[in-house]
């Protein structure tokens, strides 16, 4: 019984940590649901004074310019619906390419014997140490000279084929698949190609899904590369759109209600992923530490 007060105190600490973690998101949604007119009236109540969807309508291009101005926004159209779609296309393309090709490469490194394998693998690994800013400069020069600026392929290309981390991550799992299963398939006359797709991939569904989720989140959050190569509306993604939105009002007060509506849109898919794959995400975290 004497332990109870201590335990209570510990719970209080944990709940306080949760509150500090979650409150900013509450305030974000609260602001997004408040009209700009009510935002600066000195009320700091935890619930919006006069809840409205106008901010979401404005940034999704559903409100007329007059309505938008009346709600305290800029008259510049912010088509967040399109940026949201662009972000989804960007993330989906990167996940599809990167996971597939990294898995193929990881299999070769884990299971096939060929000359120079280990040298090549260490070469892959060693580039994990190079900070992205260093390769971003030449990559930008390359994509620009190929005419890839403001195109989807230019945005996706550097992430599409592999990342050293993805190859490294999957190789670990492929190494732990018992070789006998593949041998049996091999004796039955299955080619390496079929063994890979019909035995190795299904057996490693878990790690592959985990990698897909990690890659999707990282791509969703990507900022520097889209900032450089996806400047125009047709390819602009959510992260850069929000930064641009904020900078459009450099001297006046930013359109906070609109910005928080945009922020809410950026958080929703992440929340969805967390609800759908919560346990897997939480369990996979320890693997990202090696990154």
């Amino acid at each position, binding site marked *: 019984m004497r332990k109870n007060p201590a335990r209570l105190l*510990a719970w209080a*600490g*944990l709940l306080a*940590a949760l509150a500090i*973690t979650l409150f*900013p*998101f509450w*305030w*974000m949604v609260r*602001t997004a649901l408040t009209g700009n007119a009510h935002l600066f009236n000195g009320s*700091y109540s935890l619930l919006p004074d006069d809840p409205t969807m106008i901010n979401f309508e404005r940034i999704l291009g559903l409100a007329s310019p007059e309505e938008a101005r009346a709600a305290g926004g800029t008259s510049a159209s912010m088509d967040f619906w399109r940026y949201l779609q662009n972000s989804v296309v960007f993330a989906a393309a990167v996940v599809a390419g990167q996971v*597939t090709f990294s898995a193929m*490469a990881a299999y*070769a490194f884990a299971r096939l*014997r*060929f*000359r*120079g394998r280990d*040298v*090549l693998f260490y070469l892959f690994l060693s*580039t994990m*140490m*190079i*900070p*992205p*800013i*260093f*390769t971003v*400069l*030449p*990559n930008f*020069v390359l994509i620009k000279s190929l005419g890839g600026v403001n195109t989807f392929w230019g945005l996706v*290309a*550097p992430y599409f*084929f*592999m990342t*050293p981390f993805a*190859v490294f991550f999957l190789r670990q799992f492929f190494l732990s698949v018992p070789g006998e299963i593949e041998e049996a398939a091999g004796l039955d006359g299955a*080619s*390496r*190609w079929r063994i890979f797709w019909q035995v190795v991939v299904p057996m490693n569904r878990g790690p592959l899904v985990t990698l897909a989720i990690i890659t999707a*989140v990282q791509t969703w959050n990507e*900022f520097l590369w889209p900032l*450089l190569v996806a400047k125009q509306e047709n390819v602009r993604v959510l*992260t850069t759109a929000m*930064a641009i939105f*904020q900078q459009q009002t450099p001297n006046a007060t*930013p359109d*906070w209600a609109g*910005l*928080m509506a945009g*922020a809410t849109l*950026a958080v929703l898919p*992440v*929340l969805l992923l967390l609800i759908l794959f919560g346990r897997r995400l*939480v369990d996979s*975290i*320890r693997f990202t*530490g*090696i990154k």
Partner: protein
Amino acid sequence: MAATLLARPLGRRTARRAGPSWQRGHGRIALVFLAPALIGFAVFYLVPTVRGLWFSFTDYNLLSDPAVVGLDNYGEVLSDQVFWNALKVTGVYVVFNVATQTVLALGLAVLMERLTRSVMIKAMVLLPWLVPNVTIALLWMWLLDTNVGFVNHVLEQIGLAKQGFLFSPDQSILTIASINTWRHVGYTALLLFAGMQLIPRHLYEAARIDGAGEWRTFQRITLPLLRPVLALVLVVSLIGSFQIFDTVAVTTEGSPVNASRVIYYYIYEKAFTQFEFGYASAMSVFLILLLVALTLLQMRLLRASTSDLA
């Protein structure tokens, strides 16, 4: 380079015709499996690394061809006050961010380990880490707004003065560091939590039987046995922390004056607003040297700690 490594076994494949193919060398099929990744690796990792190094010895503004200037860029970097200031600012950021993040995460991990196995709680704790940096930066910019921000409102309510936070020269970089501490504490706590699962249960039971309190158990069992994981987490955080960019780019853009102009942001500015690609590349080379030094430190720490485990 990578292609020649693979080409060699191909030439000798006739010798391997006999016998089941899966038992022999796999040069040819390996090339099929590796081809896309090799293309990506060569085009977006290997060649750019070499090219970036080459840029650092040139004067290059994207418009005309690079002109070789030898070590001039490196000399200029070394006498660039803004560069040294950026390193200092980055250093302050890294130390403050990594220290607060690790200590708070350790506390949170112990609380979770002692109290609950709830996936819900872990998922909630992880949320900030999953959300884009840009969103987090804007969210905190709003919360910390000088006039109407929630935090300054609370400060006023409890009788304290309003603070400039991001836009105060003294607080700017520490505020950015705190924002990212907030973002990463949950993630770091989960890493440490995973590490704590590796500590044998019976040690805790033995400690309890011996009548050791929570604090003593933490000091004598948890902390020493967590050391390998803690060392790894620390250095991974350190390297990640050095690459702070998004938050600065969204909130302060290096201001006030140079108070939050971190090295990553300075390199970005030189390259993409002033188009001094050669100069920016030379600075990146210094950053790589710094990060490689940290990685070597990481390996040293890890090697030191594996002997501890045995």
